[in-house]
């Protein structure tokens, strides 16, 4: 009976931490970790010591003091008597508004430009190339300022809309007139649009200062439900088509399902519009400084959304083009051989496969757009950077606190967007079985 002699148990020596490959990687990682900790500790210590030298501390209590300043664009009510934290929230909502509309518009522009750039029509394809190259290669800040300047310089002044006594006497019309049957006015201050009012609102409540409007929730909920219902109709039509080969006509059912319930609800709630207008005296002379009624959408918002979406749209167009080109030509040729038309090949065969390639870069473009909203400060748009990182920081002098808070909020925002888009990505990506 032979027994293998056990390998001599090597006693652990200090040198093995470096010369033994089993330990070396751990050693390096531990050293790197210690160095990182030392640097972080030094930064923190430096900060605390320097603040203490200046007699300052880290204190967030300023958030609950009166803000004292006004914000021109606000989605929920705010007055200068509210706190800095409320102003922060208003700014955050403004950031989200720009990011929301910007992402939608950028996606639409990007998909169209990306598809058209591959068009066989020479002029269309070249035009899209020019669009993509021009927008990608000029700094975003310049586009924002350009869009804003164009709006404020070329649109008529508010005074030009006014009808004066002299105009009535001589029978001349005002220099500028409102659009769409006198309901929308685009002046160099902003776009005044009608505001929806309800005769029988459903009421609402406030939670933590955030208003919840039942009428709004009901309308949105009903609309979403209608969309789901119409998708159900489409699914049924598909099943019938697969079973019998004949596709039932669905367009009028879908249209009725989407439009009718919401319209009926609006009618029941008594929807009417508060149209922007001027106060008019008994002689018909327009009085006052500005339009009253309606909602005024300031040009800094419009300019920011347009510039951001055109700029980001150029990048999305490239992602879309890359996605389409990643789908092998054989796919579209096969589809053509089956007799599908060009438009259907794109929507049924190419785009669904291209989405797998498009969605991951799309996520980072959405994140870029959201973070780039901070450039709105250049046109005086009071987003989170404008309120918390601008006026609040300036009035309270709490630079460090404001910056930390702002970085944290943008981080959370980006992570949320990224999480939502990852869920969507999971639905489009190649499902391997």
């Amino acid at each position, binding site marked *: 009976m032979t027994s293998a002699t056990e390998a001599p148990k090597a006693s652990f020596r200090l040198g093995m931490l470096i010369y033994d490959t089993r330990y070396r990687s751990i050693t390096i990682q531990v*050293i790197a970790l210690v*160095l990182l900790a030392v640097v972080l500790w030094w930064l923190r210590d430096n900060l605390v010591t320097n603040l203490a030298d*200046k007699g300052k501390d880290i204190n967030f209590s300023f958030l609950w003091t009166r803000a*004292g300043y006004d914000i021109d664009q606000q989605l929920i009510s705010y007055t200068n008597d509210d706190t800095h934290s409320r102003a922060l929230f208003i700014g955050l909502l403004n950031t989200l508004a720009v990011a929301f509309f910007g992402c939608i518009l950028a996606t639409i522009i990007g998909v169209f430009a990306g598809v058209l750039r591959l068009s066989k029509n020479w002029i269309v394809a070249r035009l899209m190339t020019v669009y993509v190259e021009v927008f990608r290669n000029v700094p975003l800040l310049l586009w924002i300022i350009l869009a804003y300047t164009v709006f404020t310089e070329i649109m008529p002044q508010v005074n030009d809309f006014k009808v004066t006594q002299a105009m009535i006497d001589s029978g001349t019309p005002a220099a500028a007139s409102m659009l769409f049957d006198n309901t929308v006015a685009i002046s160099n201050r902003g776009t005044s649009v009608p505001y929806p009012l309800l005769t029988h609102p459903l009421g609402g409540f406030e939670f933590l200062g955030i208003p919840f409007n039942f009428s709004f929730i009901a309308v949105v909920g009903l609309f979403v439900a209608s969309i789901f219902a119409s998708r159900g109709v489409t699914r049924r039509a598909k099943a019938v088509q697969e079973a019998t080969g004949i596709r039932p006509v669905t367009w009028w059912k879908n249209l009725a399902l989407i439009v009718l319930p919401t319209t009926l609800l609006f009618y029941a709630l008594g929807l009417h519009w508060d149209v922007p207008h001027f106060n008019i005296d008994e002689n018909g002379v327009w009085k006052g400084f500005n339009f009253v009624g309606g909602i005024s959408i300031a040009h800094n918002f419009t300019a920011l959304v347009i510039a951001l979406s055109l700029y980001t749209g150029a990048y999305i167009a490239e992602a879309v083009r890359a996605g389409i080109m990643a789908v092998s030509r054989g796919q579209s040729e096969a589809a053509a051989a089956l007799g599908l038309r060009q438009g259907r090949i794109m929507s049924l065969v190419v785009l669904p496969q291209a989405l797998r390639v498009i969605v991951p870069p799309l996520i980072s473009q959405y994140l870029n757009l959201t973070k780039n909203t901070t450039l709105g400060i250049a046109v005086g748009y009071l987003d989170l950077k404008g309120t918390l990182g601008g*006026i609040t920081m300036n009035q309270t*002098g709490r630079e460090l606190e404001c910056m930390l808070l702002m970085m944290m909020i943008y981080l959370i925002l980006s992570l949320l967007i990224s999480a939502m888009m990852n869920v969507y990505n999971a639905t489009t990506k190649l499902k391997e079985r």
Partner: protein
Amino acid sequence: MKKSVFLGTLVATSLLAGFASASTLDDVKARGELICGSNTGLTGFGAPDATGQYMGFDADLCKAVAAAVLGDASKVKYVPTTGETRFTALASGEVDMLVRNSTWTFSRDNDLKLDFVAVNYYDGQGFMVRKDLGVSSAKELDGATICIQTGTTTELNLADFFKTNNINYTPVTIQDDAEGQRQFLAGACDAYTTDASGLAALRATLPSPADYVVLPEIISKEPLGPVVRHGDNQWGDIVRWTYYALVAAEEKGITKANIEEVAASTNDPEVKRMLGLEGDLGAMMGLDKEWAKRAIAANGNYGEIFEANIGASTPIGLARGLNAQWTQGGLQYAPPFR
């Protein structure tokens, strides 16, 4: 690896060694240059001329301090700051002093850890509108759109004024004076509000100043003055007393032109002390004897600086008003040089 661990520790410890900060005066002397936080461009107060050299009422105070400390009024580097960046620039040590139409308020003095060492211009916030708007009082501005520079005390004053008078307005926030001017001229706002001196400066640069009026209401007290970091009292004293030397010079009739003559012939003991002919006031704050003489010789006394940059003979055309000497019914009053 042992060697790199050693080096790493060495680097870490040397980083931890901390900085011993010298006083601002030593810094300025060692650098041979005064770094002055200035406006990005406000005609008459601090704006670069055609050659890029900063000129104006505030810039002249920087020059006077440079003359007092370094002996050469041209040894000033101007760092343009916006309403939002100015205090951070000062607190972080990027600039030695800030002379940029900054209002002295309680919270800035205490909470921001800054020291307002003097008031070189007593101002107040006003409104400018187009004449054809037919407005004669700020109280008639109910419903108006008002352009306002963000990050300033004017925002808070504006909110308070409209609240007090129970009227409404729409603010249009802007980043700097140039943008405010563009918006106001384009008619994007009915009124522009800032310090009355700033309005006068803006009006002077407009193509047709007569079409615009500054409304009579002054809705706030805006004492504007040079600012230094809290805690370096010696440097604060230097800036404060350089400024007072200019004020006292006007009171005593010492001008840029006659300063040598006065120094040679004066019998006034206070003038002698100030100009370093008697005693050694300069040494008490770490300067030489002739500091005040050089400061006054740089651009003249307070009155001369006022008249040359923003006075009645300039396009800005501001009256002395509250900024006259106390002997003339104003508020400019230098403590005794003793």
